[in-house]
């Protein structure tokens, strides 16, 4: 049966890892994810889990050791943040290119410079094209539930891709929340045993992993990676549904909140959804048809589902917790535009970059965004920029759009 406990997001991740019982974990400390490996190391020291823990000398080596262990045929997990994820960057591509189902908890954090230890999505966005599945959790419960599901998603024979489970640094990683934990046996039964297809340590069938591939085959191998990613949405949904049927908490690719009859909505990821949902409830009482669409899967991005959910709306604002300097908007915004590009009639779309380096998102900020959406929905003209910073110590002015306009 289940237990109700009070844990931080990091501890929830460590608890999930203990129950998953990976054969190998290799990690390096970095704020704000350090607590994941600290907690897990204590589990190992106390004999509560028999994982081989490799306390490496850098995140580059952490992911490298994960690659080695996963190729060997082990189930492998790790955790990191920010500069750590950036230092892993080139190894991330090896994990996905070799089709190794590594699962990593990422407590998302800003990137230097200037150095800042607090939450935003810059680190995870920097690795969005590394071929990893990226799932974003809203709170500690989701961190726990998503990690259990991530292992099944990653190891699915039609997927075999590494998965990042992202949650907001400090807001989720360090806040103590009430959550429901499964019995070890239940969790383990749900996750199942990993059966690697071609382990390096199968001495009877020697495999060459990571050869030199020239122009005559490289494209085909990359194409297979895309096909694997194309299978991921179905598998994410299937695993989320199986989880719900067993434990009562259902998960999909995205979460809609008051979207059914909405005219205006925000699209976002991560912990800010809690604040936004609160504001929406208030707006609804005032008679404003406001809604929220929260993405759980960012890679693969469920473009069709997003388009279907937002097509009937009049105006949509994206909350991007990272900027993509030099692009027409934040990373989520450009993806939204692409997703809605094929629709014959589209809602008005605007973008707000918010919460950089841990800056709070307050309910009044969210209300301000909805008021603008209401004006846009009413067909009012405006001379505001499409992409803006939300709460910045400066008179609001347009960010220079790429290519003029």
């Amino acid at each position, binding site marked *: 049966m289940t237990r109700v406990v009070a844990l931080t997001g990091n501890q929830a991740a460590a608890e999930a890892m203990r129950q998953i019982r990976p054969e*190998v974990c290799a990690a390096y400390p970095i704020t704000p994810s350090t607590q994941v490996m600290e907690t897990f190391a204590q589990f190992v020291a106390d004999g509560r889990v028999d994982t081989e823990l490799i306390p490496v000398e850098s995140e580059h080596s952490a992911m490298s050791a994960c690659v080695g262990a996963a190729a060997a045929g082990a189930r492998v997990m790790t955790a990191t943040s920010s500069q750590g994820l950036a230092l892993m960057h080139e190894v991330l591509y090896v994990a996905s290119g070799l089709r190794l189902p590594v699962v990593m908890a990422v407590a998302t954090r800003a990137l230097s410079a200037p150095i800042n230890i607090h939450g935003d999505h810059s680190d995870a966005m920097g690795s969005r094209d590394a071929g990893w599945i990226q799932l974003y959790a809203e709170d500690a419960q989701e961190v726990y539930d998503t990690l259990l599901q991530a292992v099944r998603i990653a190891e699915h024979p039609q997927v075999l891709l590494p998965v990042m489970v992202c949650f907001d640094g400090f807001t989720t990683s360090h806040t103590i929340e009430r959550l429901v934990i499964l019995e070890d046996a239940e969790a383990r039964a749900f996750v199942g045993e990993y059966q690697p297809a071609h382990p390096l340590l199968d001495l009877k069938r020697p495999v060459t992993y990571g050869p030199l591939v020239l122009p005559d085959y490289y494209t085909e191998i990359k194409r297979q990676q895309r096909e694997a990613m194309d299978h991921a949405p179905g598998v994410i949904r299937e695993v989320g549904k199986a989880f719900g049927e067993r434990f009562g908490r259902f998960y999909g690719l995205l979460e809609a909140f008051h979207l059914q009859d909405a005219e205006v909505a925000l699209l976002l990821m991560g912990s800010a959804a809690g604040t936004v949902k609160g504001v929406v409830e208030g707006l609804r009482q005032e008679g404003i048809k406001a809604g929220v669409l929260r993405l759980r899967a960012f890679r693969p991005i469920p473009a069709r589902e997003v388009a279907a959910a937002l097509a009937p709306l009049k105006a949509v604002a994206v909350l991007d917790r990272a900027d993509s300097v030099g692009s027409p908007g934040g990373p989520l915004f450009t993806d939204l535009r692409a997703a809605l590009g094929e629709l014959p009639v589209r809602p008005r779309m605007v973008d707000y970059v918010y919460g950089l380096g841990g800056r709070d998102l307050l309910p009044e900020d969210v209300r301000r965004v909805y008021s603008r959406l209401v004006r846009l929905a009413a067909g009012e003209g405006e001379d505001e920029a499409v992409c803006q910073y939300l709460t910045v110590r400066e008179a609001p002015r347009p960010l220079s759009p790429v290519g003029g306009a």
Partner: protein
Amino acid sequence: MAAQKATIAAIRSPSVKELSLHPDLLSGGHRLCAGCAESIIVRQVLLAAQAPVVVINATSCLEVATTIYPYTAWRVPWLHSLFENAAATVSGVEAAWRALQRRGKIPEERIAFIVFAGDGGTYDIGLQSLSGALERGHRFLYVCLNNEAYMNTGIQRSSATPLGAHTTTTPAGEVIPGKLQWRKDLTGIIAAHRIPYVAQTALTPQPLTDLTTKVRRALEADGPSFLNVYSPCNRGWRFEPADTIRISQLAVETCYWPLFEVVEGEWRLTYTPREKKPVAQWLEAQGRFRHLLKPEHRHVMDEIQVWVDREWESLLARTGRAAAKRDEAPPRPAPGHRPERAEPPQTARAAQGEGGAARCPCGASSPGVQWGCLFCGRVCCPRCAYSPEGLTVCARCARDLFGIAEPPALASAERRWISRE
């Protein structure tokens, strides 16, 4: 530990005849250059290993030439990830092997985990990853195939490249005679990690089984082990492909590349040349040092001989064969210390501007501005200069700051120097 030391030291390689009966685990048909030492070394390593082998390869000539998809030359499990992370990668593989055995998912048997990496992947970009893996104590053998430069990208200098060598990033030019720095003492750095077994070896007819004996010993060690294997590259070093072994033997006979091992912290020579040959024989056999034969660069050759002599003496002392004749680590000057100056120093650049060739107080002409003293800027020829870590310190500052006696070459010139000032 003492018991293990004795056990390891007693291990001997089987005869070459016996080794030749073992199956070859690296097939022919790979694309390494004719005359490349790497495939010979790899085959010998694999022949010597007794337990089943799993290979982890850093990005290198060996990696690209043996696994051109969809072909592979490897008859053993093989994994390549990146350039600088082979040691971290093997850490993961070895940890997985432990964990999977413990859970009964794979049979309990010894596996020899062997890393192959070049000197660039070991001395330079992979050093951090290697150091970490050694400190953590994973059980694996790391083999550095040392061809003294980045050959895979086309002969660029690494910290293993010897002084004076021409590479494409340290070209021999009008002013600069090839690489200006000594190579890093990597074998010593690895030994400083106090791992059970460290050795330096090469492909030599004499002694014939030095490499295979050391592989056997390394794989017997209970923990990490390291082999720095000299790997002549005819393309980068410019010699005939048939001369690979001759060049190896010359490097050993000149004591440029001595054969030794460090077993549980104890340094031992595994071969002493009957007659120490002049290093010039080894230098002259390679096109990468050709410019040193010119009269104006001849002094670099002399400097290399001095360095080789000093290193050899220090190795003899470490292995208990002889007493050290010089201080191995001269005391560093106190911060802020500057040598006394009687008058404004004649800097190297100024001296060169005045009368064409700059002159050292001993009378020799200095080849270029790089021979100005680091501390006082005075011109000093390579023969007189003290050169720690590739820097130039004039004989006078060396005496004042490091307490080093004037080299013999300056003994007679010292008086002239003083009188001139």
